[in-house]
């Protein structure tokens, strides 16, 4: 079939992609978690669900946990220190949203599956819905609010606005934060690399085409 020039490359690409994705899950999301969780701990628990650090999410309920009273914990968020009074086992997402009043990170699934809660921790994109506050330590947390301001938006934010890359917009926090961590590592990505980088962030409205264009635009603008 002479009109099928790309298929073999496509098939190979797909296969490589699947491997890549598995690797990325470990390297990106879960490496982020590994860094912050005691090295010997194989899984973390939340809402009675175990997340195995090797990437498998299991649904078996956890045994009842010890109750821990809330403590004052210092967090470095968007360049400033904040003392938040929370339970150390509670997840970072709730501290950011409810204690610090931030709107960028969103609750989407609580299972590290959708990416709506993504924030940067020491430059890595992590899922704040499964990251215990106790694991943050001195790490520098950056949320969408910390990327840019309405007066001085980050180049990614400018690009998303220029491309009108949102519909309901609930996932966009995660898209921008994941793209930020990605572009910091790979400032001149191809379209396929952008798609790979965002593959574990879910969008339901179907804004994908514009999101990819926005990241391409931002990458172009940072080249200058």
């Amino acid at each position, binding site marked *: *079939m002479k009109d*099928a020039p790309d*298929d073999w490359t*496509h*098939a190979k690409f*797909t296969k490589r992609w699947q491997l890549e994705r598995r690797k990325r899950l470990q390297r990106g999301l879960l490496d982020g978690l590994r860094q912050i969780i005691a090295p010997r701990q194989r899984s973390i628990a939340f*809402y*009675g*669900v175990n997340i195995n650090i090797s990437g498998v*999410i299991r*649904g078996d*309920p956890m045994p009842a946990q010890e*109750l*821990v009273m*809330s403590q004052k914990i210092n967090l470095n968020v968007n360049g400033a220190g904040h003392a938040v*009074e*929370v*339970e150390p086992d509670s*997840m970072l997402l*709730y501290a950011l949203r*409810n*204690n610090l*009043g931030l*709107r*960028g990170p*969103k*609750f*989407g*699934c609580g*299972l590290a*599956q*959708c990416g709506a809660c993504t924030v940067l921790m020491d430059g890595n994109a992590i899922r704040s819905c499964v990251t215990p506050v106790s694991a943050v330590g001195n790490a520098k947390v950056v*949320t*969408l609010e910390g990327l840019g301001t*309405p007066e001085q*938006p980050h180049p990614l*934010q400018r690009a*998303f*606005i220029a491309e*009108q*890359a*949102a*519909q*309901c*917009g*609930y*996932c*966009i926090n995660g898209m921008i934060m994941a793209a930020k961590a990605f572009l910091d590592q790979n400032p001149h990505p191809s379209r396929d690399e952008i*798609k*790979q980088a965002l*593959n574990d962030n*879910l*969008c*339901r*409205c*179907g804004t*994908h*085409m*514009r999101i*990819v264009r926005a990241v391409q635009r931002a990458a172009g603008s940072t080249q200058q």
Partner: protein
Amino acid sequence: MITLYNTMSSAVDLAPSRRRFLQASGGLVITFSLFGPKPVLARDAAQTSLAPPPAGKLYAWLAVHPDNTATLFTGKVETGTGVQTALAQIAAEELDFPFDRLDVVMGTTSATVDQGPSYGSMTVRYAGPQIRSAAAAGREALLNLAAEHFKVSPNELVAKDGTISVVGIPDRTVTYGKLVDGKRLDMEIGASGKRFAMKVAPNAHAKDPSTYTIIGKPLPRKDIPGKILATFPYVQDVRIDGMLHGRVVRPYGVEATLQSVDENGVKNIPGFVQVVRRGNFLGVVAETEWAAIQAAAKLGSTLNPSGPDAGQAKWSNWTGLPKMDEIWETVRKTAAGRNISVASQGSAALAFGYASRTLKATYKTPFQMHGSIGPSCAIAQVKGDRATFWSGTQMPHETRRDMAQLLGIPLDNVELRWVEASGGYGRNGLDHVVADAAILSQAVGRPVRVQWMRWDEHGWEPKGPPIVQDLQGALDENGRVIAWQHHMWIPTIDDTHLIAAALIGRPDATGDTGTGKVPVITYAYTFENADVAVHDEGRVALLTAWLRSPAQFETTFAMESFIDELAAAAGQDPLAFRLAYLKDPRAVAVLKAAAEAYGWHTRPARAKADHSGKPAHGRGLAWVNRDDVRVATIADVTVDPSSGRIKVSRVVVAHDCGLVVNPDGLKNQIEGNVIQSLSRTLHEEVTFDTAHVTSQDWQGYPILRFEDIPDSIDIVLVNNRPEYPSYGAGEPSTNPTAAVISNAVFDAIGVRLRQTPFRPKRVKAAMT
């Protein structure tokens, strides 16, 4: 004690006057604005009722402020589709007012007119003309004020960009803001009828559409900057003084009854306030969100609980759902013989006797879900016989009435303050969570915020129903269609009963079971003998309600795939075959426009099974008439026979929704529909056992990811001209996709896929 973030602390008042609300909620309303917060002084200062404003008054629609900004009030709401911007363009156009100085207040029941729910691609189509008329009346009212101001006749005045000038005397100008001087626009403009059918300002003179300067421009959406900059408040972000956090604990089985609740250990959770139990309704309330989540988890709210007594709340062992693989038989059997004819032409039954070739096929589509990325959320403040709700529902005025009914309190004491939510795509959990919050708030006497967990949303949001369709077609010896039969079995697509009401033992407190009735299809072919009928039903298995383009996504899949089957059997080009049986000029126009943009060459579907194992290419075509919008879609696919994976590379859409208000907003919506319907075609199926939904997260219910997006989506706008009205574009471009992909796969590998989703396993199975 946690520090609560007070978005609207001053807005908490059980009986706010509308003026106080509008002042207090300024921080919220103004998020849509480029300007700082301001009191809407022009609105009613004295009125204390929470009833919507009277539609016949200009102030029900518009306010002009001293700084020469203005506010449009509409009962319609934004759900991510861009209607806020489109409606603002319509108002700015008719008011001769700068678009970027016009705010929009949406949905809040005490501040807006009930224009009907924001569903069914009906917002621009029906609310557009209402707003257009109100804004035209506003412009006339302002010209009259200016005529008094300048002591001239209104005919000597010209309005432009929010100022009025005396013709020929350029220094005699006055702004709208100065003219109105902070007052309420108390003019009577007249209104009759209700909701979608409401006629507003019947005597106003709207502009000639050929003179439009704001309508038709691809203006940036008003809501997008805030969503990108994290300043936009979603309903999930609303925090109220004294607010508690609630979570629900749903039954293990759909209709299981609550046997017992062991609160041991729950009470020790720091911040725990109360377990609320009413019949089979179970919820928890706590000072912090984390405590509420922990308490609910102890009672059994977890992902994939292992059984009805896995948590400290024990449920009866209910297993009343049909088996998953028997659902379509159940759908068939449930039909009580009702047969609603959509088209009856000649006699299909007789004509089949004369066929040289007869084809039969059955198409099946599963339960699918809305799958909002943000689980449903609402805040309720119920105290005595008064209630305030913060909600992102697509039907604020209905939900307000439902809540008054559910709580048994006077409607005049209920207000729903609308705040945008994560996208809904139909009736998802947003209305149900309001009822959950109402019950919890009523029980504890404080404001309660409830957000569903992911498993609550996946498990309990109303689904799109499973549908089974039988088709039969007959060809004569020349390959012409002499008979067409299409019968559809469709469970209800508009069951509006509330989950919480059923759980507290008052299932009929509000809502209606609804049916799977027409319009679920627009039949447009001109076959001589045709029998197209819907067997509509009530609830089958799970709660179902409207999901983007309810049932028509599924019926278009069957109709447009089966005509492809006939075209292939007749050895004809699928486009030419369709055109031979279509008279509707707008349908013909979109099909031809899509074919031209795609570069369609006439040939029958290849349909050759290729045993080389190499990836194969195919093209597919389908069209729809949804709510008077015509859409034709063509796509290229590559099927990898070794994996069964379908990759969509190129999509072309020709779209006719008449005069387009905002071309870029429309394209955003069309792209979204294409991607979302591709997701529904390739990936999505709700799974369930006899107790409950088992696809409770994104692993169980996968949706399309970036790896599956097409390389390009090209969009051609057809009949985008002033002589056409503006039809709604929310849903229509969803419809052709499943048929397009099925037809393209057939072209590629000669295999006909008649059941969604087309997951690799199913494709592989079909190939053998």
